[in-house]
């Protein structure tokens, strides 16, 4: 079920009414309802995928209980290995098998021999990369004794499959989300209204920005040989906004929906295009995934508290793994590696944490230095997203080569409507860059009528300019 579908517009109010009006007094019933609703939400794509998520949940539930009873370190390690093996195994089979088979076959051709790789004709289950990481975090945290294992099977299954964030995150940690299932949720007016605001903003980002950008960017990327270098730059810029609006829009809807049910999910995007360097951009982009890799991969490898060569190795590992998580394609690996390259100088000269505050804090407009820093960071992001969007490496390099052609300084095709939307997005988000989401305007000292007019205006834009319905990009990850 897509967030921007009629089905979801019917589904959400029904579950909301049942949750707060029919069974609000019984926590267990509320959790059962959330679990069933989540399975319905997920099964809407394909019922068969439900078996996978149930199996994955069941394994980690048992591993958790096993870890609580087991005191012998070797046996505890073995239990953790089972969880990692099964979860990563599923990912490997469904997401990466064909990639490895084809890459293996390609490697053979380098030695003059060609082999026909065997491929699996399977569909990638929606959101597998997200819930796998979520459930893995539970097993690892229990193993590390950071979290008490749960015996409440309903809460655990509901935690793994919680529908607002099931298919495209934020990837919630068990330490944050699971305890929320144990406690009685009370309806909070402020939280719920702000949740609705966040949903509206997310829908705007997805349906107005991302879906309209998609039409332009798809045309440019699919027919890049027909366009001038200057237009190809616009194509990359538009795609950079498409991916941001698509994914952060999804996260906004997810977080807003969860708030309607009394849950707090972690902020997943903190206005990354207002970053002054690549390190800051990564602290603000897909926060739940980046912190997951930081805590479960980077730090166990030694993080930055090791020698210089190991530090470099760790950085490349984390960025390449992060790229590879996005998809089984060399383009994502190169995308990750490029980010590592841009990040590396900052960490080596120990300037990776100089921009931890909000840009131009307390000021209406940034100074020239900040503008240049943000511009340069956005330029780096734009160049790298070409690899993110390209179908393969040849496509990416050809696209780049076509940018730097003789017509680079010719007049580009300028999608005026799209840039108007993007300007609106940037203005609204700039004024709220210290908030949790772009439309958190409850503290603005303006009359309620003006606020409502703004909401209606955004809803009008969604209806009137909502592009052709497209799936969320991150579903394929």
């Amino acid at each position, binding site marked *: 079920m897509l967030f921007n579908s*009629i089905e979801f517009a019917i589904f959400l109010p029904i579950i909301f009414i049942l949750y707060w009006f029919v069974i609000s007094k019984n926590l267990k019933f509320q959790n059962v309802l959330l679990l069933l609703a989540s399975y319905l939400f997920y099964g809407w794509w394909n019922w068969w995928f439900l078996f996978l998520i149930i199996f994955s949940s069941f394994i980690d539930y048992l591993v958790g209980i096993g870890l609580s009873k087991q005191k012998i370190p070797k046996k505890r390690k073995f239990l953790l290995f089972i969880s990692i093996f099964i979860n990563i195994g599923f990912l490997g089979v469904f997401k990466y098998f064909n990639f490895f088979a084809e890459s293996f076959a390609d490697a053979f051709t380098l030695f003059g021999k060609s082999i026909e790789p065997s491929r699996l004709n399977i569909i990638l289950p929606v959101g597998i990369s997200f819930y796998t990481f979520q459930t893995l975090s539970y097993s690892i945290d229990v193993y590390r004794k950071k979290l008490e294992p749960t015996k409440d099977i309903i809460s655990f299954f509901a935690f793994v499959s919680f529908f607002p964030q099931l298919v495209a995150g934020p990837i919630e940690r068990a330490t944050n989300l699971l305890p929320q299932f144990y406690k009685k949720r009370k*309806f909070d007016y402020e939280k719920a*209204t702000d949740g609705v605001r966040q949903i509206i903003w997310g829908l705007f980002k997805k349906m107005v920005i991302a879906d309209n950008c998609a039409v332009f960017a798809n045309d440019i990327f699919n027919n890049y040989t027909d366009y001038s270098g200057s237009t190809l730059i616009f194509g990359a810029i538009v795609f950079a906004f498409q991916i941001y609006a698509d994914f952060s829009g999804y996260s906004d809807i997810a977080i807003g929906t969860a708030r309607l049910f009394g849950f707090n999910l972690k902020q997943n995007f903190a206005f990354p295009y207002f970053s002054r360097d690549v390190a800051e951009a990564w602290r603000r982009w897909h926060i739940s995934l980046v912190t997951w890799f930081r805590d479960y991969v980077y730090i166990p490898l030694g993080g930055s508290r090791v020698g210089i060569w190991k530090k470099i190795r760790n950085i490349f590992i984390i960025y390449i793994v992060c790229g590879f998580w996005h998809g089984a394609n060399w383009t994502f690996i190169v995308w990750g590696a490029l980010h590592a390259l841009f990040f590396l100088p900052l960490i080596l000269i120990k300037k990776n944490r100089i921009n931890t505050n909000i840009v131009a804090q307390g000021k209406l407009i940034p100074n020239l230095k900040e503008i240049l820093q943000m511009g340069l960071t956005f330029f780096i992001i734009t160049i790298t997203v070409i690899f993110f969007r390209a179908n393969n490496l040849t496509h990416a390099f050809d696209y780049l080569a076509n940018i730097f052609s003789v017509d680079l300084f010719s007049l580009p095709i300028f999608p005026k409507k799209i840039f108007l939307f993007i300007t609106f997005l940037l203005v609204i988000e700039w004024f709220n860059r210290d908030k949790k989401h772009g439309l958190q305007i409850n503290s603005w000292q303006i009359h309620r009528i003006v606020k409502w007019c703004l909401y209606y205006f955004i809803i*009008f834009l969604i*209806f*009137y300019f*909502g592009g052709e319905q497209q799936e969320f990009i991150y579903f394929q990850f």
Partner: protein
Amino acid sequence: MKRFIEVAIIFIIIPVFYLLINYFINRYFINSHVIDVQTNVLIVGNSHNRRSIDTTFFKNAKNIAQGAEPYFATYLKLKKLCVNNKIDTLILNFFYGDISAGNDKKFINKKWSGEMFKRLYAISSLSDFNQFEINYRNYFYVYIKNLCLYPKVKHDNYIGSFNGKKSKKIHNDSTEAIERHYFYEDKNVGISYLCINYLDSIINLADKNNMKLILVTAPLHSSYINNIPTNFQDSFFELKDSLINEKIMVLDLSESIIEDKYFYNSDHLNNKGAKKFTKILIDTLNCKLY
């Protein structure tokens, strides 16, 4: 909770009220607005007529054809236009793809359904689509967007015009065009009896309104004609014969122009081709009618 529900209801009621007012205003405009085609020769159908009959060379004629238009849509258009217009001659395209079941999928297809509903919302109701599978999301989306968001006087998206294309060289896309017209998910879509029925309805409508109906097959490039699946060729010729037996004028001019320089792509003429074809058509009509 009570406060949240109250605020939510008020928040929803205001736009619902606004949408309803717009709906009634737009309905009033649709019902009161008369489309005057100001012609006695009307050219209708899909892109084949749209791109091949240039009305700057065809006195008194008006081309209102639109790309990818199925007979069902043409029928709805004519039904509406016949109420307030006196049309003597109706030129409708008649081409192999017009009887393809691919046309029936245009109301469910993600890409086409929105465009179809956008053209037809003012002259159709949901019940008109009973015989088709439709994309409800797109239907209601287009309906609300065009009727409820703001008042607008003109609701004539269903009126097309001649749309000539300049090209020096033919874009030979016969494989893609054949695929698009006769196949769906790599399978031959077969013949649409709904399309044939709606062609029949157009014939009856023309007859009832004393319009002389002329079915025209515009030029097609040999690379296209040679690749049309045989079931479509057989059905097309069978239907053509039966129409001729019913005394309907059918002008198969599909091979009246063959040179590449007159084609935009495998199944459409370019500007030059349209000019040439319009003259051929006028000459043929003069010959047959007078």
